[in-house]
């Protein structure tokens, strides 16, 4: 009778253990977040940081993904990635889908799958208000027209050989140059023209829609199940009017879109998001406001990014120092194949750009040997592998500058070659190379900004992002420059101290215990 409860408990546990494994897989499909890749620097109305609070993302694609994720019962997670690298980033599994004004083109369809189009638009010509003779591409003969690099607009312009094309990385500078008279017109996707051309008091949109382009959600070729789910969800969102509401809120509902979705019902949805954008855009700030924004919004974000830079640089340098020492020893003392390999490695790494090495590690390794490194690991590994080659040469120079007689004295005492290296040669060599190694470390802190190409948000990347919001490259630039300087300073001081402390020539300093 006493045993009964325990007996029951045992049965319960047994049943649980049988049931639990069946419960778990049933739960997991709903739980993984929906990671979506986009470039917040691309700007409005797709995805852009809120001017009031730069850590918050706005845009019609943010709203679209939120609706989509809700439909799929998954949590949306935004992954920042440079626009140029969106497709490679998708292929190495940094995110599950791309939603970032990605035009469906036959070239891209070779590499990835696209959902059914979620937006259809066209190219829009923008000119200065005082220009009256330009209303079509034919009118632009002999004129200078700005556009975005590698866009449909650029391809359309290239079909007109008598138009002089200026290709830009970002829309802001293009429209600014148009306003300043450096360009005669700008041709870009209609949503961009609406948000950056039409909102500029000196510019106006002119002419008929040019060409047609469809934005699709990008997916990996193998994710066919997800593709079907997303297409079904898009269908649902179209049918229940959610998509249309989103586009209307952003003032992006055009007759062409209505025709595409075959949805011509009248509607009373107000373009609130568009109006909010106009309001914050027109907001003129006093310098006190700006200062406040620096202190409250920008500084915390920059400090966070600075911590990434520090962590990245420190871990890369520690690894570079260790690996570099190994390389230099192999090059100097190892048996033939190893010595040659070390030399080859050093020369190969020093002879190629860091940028190429990073892209290789991040994008080519997955194709080559199926190793997919996270951005952090790839960044640290890339910097460490690169700097190890330079450190190896520092150490080699240091080791070679230790007189041969030191090795002889150690050997004569009965040490093995390795013992002599470890206890006599390397400790002296390390002291000698403190200045060049410090130098390299300062370089590494600055070179760490290169890793932004593999989707790492560090100090320089964050600076670009924040400066892009208000076009404030000056103020933030000074802040970031000071930050880099302050990051490097302690290490310079530390190195100076170590150099004095470990100096081999002690004549300048008093002995520890002088009788």
């Amino acid at each position, binding site marked *: 009778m006493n045993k009964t409860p325990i007996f029951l408990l045992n049965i319960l546990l047994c049943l649980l253990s049988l049931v639990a494994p069946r419960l778990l897989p049933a739960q997991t499909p709903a739980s993984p977040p929906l990671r979506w890749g986009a470039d917040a620097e691309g700007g409005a109305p797709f995805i852009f940081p809120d001017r009031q609070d730069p850590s918050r993302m706005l845009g019609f694609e943010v709203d679209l993904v939120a609706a989509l994720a809700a439909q799929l019962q998954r949590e949306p997670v935004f992954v920042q990635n440079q626009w140029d690298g969106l497709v490679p980033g998708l292929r190495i599994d940094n995110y599950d889908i791309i939603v970032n004004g990605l035009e469906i083109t036959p070239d891209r369809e070779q590499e990835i799958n696209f959902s059914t189009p979620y937006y259809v638009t066209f190219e829009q010509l923008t000119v200065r208000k005082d220009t009256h003779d330009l209303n079509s591409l034919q009118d632009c003969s002999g004129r200078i027209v700005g556009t975005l690099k590698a866009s449909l607009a650029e391809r359309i312009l290239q079909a007109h050989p008598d138009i002089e094309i200026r290709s830009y990385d970002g829309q802001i500078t293009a429209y600014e140059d148009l306003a300043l008279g450096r360009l005669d017109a700008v041709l870009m996707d209609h949503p961009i023209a609406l948000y950056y051309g039409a909102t500029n008091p000196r510019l106006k949109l002119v002419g008929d829609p040019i060409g047609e382009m469809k934005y699709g959600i990008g997916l990996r070729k193998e994710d066919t199940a997800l593709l079907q789910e997303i297409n079904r969800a898009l269908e649902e969102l179209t049918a229940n009017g959610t998509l249309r509401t989103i586009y209307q809120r952003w003032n992006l509902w055009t007759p062409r879109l209505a025709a595409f979705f075959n949805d011509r019902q009248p509607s009373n949805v107000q373009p609130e998001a568009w109006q909010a954008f106009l309001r914050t855009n027109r907001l003129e700030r006093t310098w006190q406001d700006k200062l406040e924004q620096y202190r409250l919004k920008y500084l915390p974000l920059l400090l966070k990014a600075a911590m990434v830079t520090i962590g990245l640089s420190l871990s890369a340098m520690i690894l570079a120092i260790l690996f570099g020492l190994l390389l230099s020893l192999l090059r100097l003392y190892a048996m033939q194949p190893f010595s040659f390999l070390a030399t080859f490695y050093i020369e190969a790494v020093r002879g190629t750009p860091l940028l190429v090495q990073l892209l290789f590690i991040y994008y080519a390794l997955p194709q080559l040997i199926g190793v997919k490194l996270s951005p952090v690991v790839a960044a640290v590994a890339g910097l460490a592998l690169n700097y190890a080659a330079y450190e190896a040469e520092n150490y080699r120079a240091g080791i070679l500058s230790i007189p041969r007689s030191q090795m*002889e004295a150690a050997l004569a*005492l009965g040490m093995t070659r390795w013992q002599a290296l470890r206890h006599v040669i390397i400790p*002296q060599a390390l002291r000698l190379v403190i200045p060049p190694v410090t130098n390299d470390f300062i370089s590494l802190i600055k070179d760490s900004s290169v890793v932004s190409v593999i989707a790492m948000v560090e100090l320089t990347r964050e600076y670009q992002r924040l400066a892009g919001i208000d076009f404030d490259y000056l103020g933030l630039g000074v802040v970031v420059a000071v930050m880099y300087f302050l990051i490097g300073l302690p290490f310079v001081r530390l190195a100076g101290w170590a150099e004095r402390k470990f100096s081999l020539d*002690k004549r300048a300093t008093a002995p*520890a215990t002088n009788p």
Partner: protein
Amino acid sequence: MSSTNPVVISVTDLHKSFHHNQVLRGVDLQVEARELTVLIGPSGCGKSTFLRCLNCLEVMDQGRITIGGITLERRHKSQALSHDFHAKTRTLRTNVGMVFQSFNLFPHLTTLENVMRPPMVVKGLAAATAKARALDLLGKVGLASHANHYPSQLSGGQQQRAAIARALAMEPQVMLYDEPTSALDPGLVDEVLNVMKQLDQEGMTQIVVTHEMRFARDVADKVVYFEGGNIVESGPPSRIFSSPGDERTRKFLRKYL
């Protein structure tokens, strides 16, 4: 007296050449325990190379070296050095203390660490034991008060005495000196020679390459005259210095005495 002592160093038919320059041409030498042997001869005669061959800082081309019961032998220059040869080399080196012309102390270590560290590394001696022994040896060479100085804070004579203490810390059976006072100011020479004299009185077997003829005459048990890569003659200093048997020895000594 000397005939009662066992032979500690025995060298037979030692050859060594650098490229085509024959530096040693079949040297034979026997050194008895407790003896102090001085090697003299003109520059480039091979006496330093001979000393360096004894503890394999230069690997002999051909010949046989026995020190303290360990024998290294090589039939011909073309004979590859075996693993066994290298292992024996290390054992032999711990048995042979070497003192260099330029001291070669380890500049990143204090005097004390210079003396205590090698036995810890090579013989696995405990730090406390090594330290006690090192302080003892530094006291013996008159550097007890300089234990915590770095080499760059010592005079040449002090550095060389520290180097002798470092070699002694390995408890060698034999001490080799390669022109130990050549780099010293004349005023500092005696303090180093006195240490060697003291070791001789304690019964250390020593070979010294030097130009200090006074030291050779007063302290050596045997003087060996080297020229042209071989021993010309050897004998007690009284005979070599007063009535050398060979014309070459006579000519050399005339320049120095």
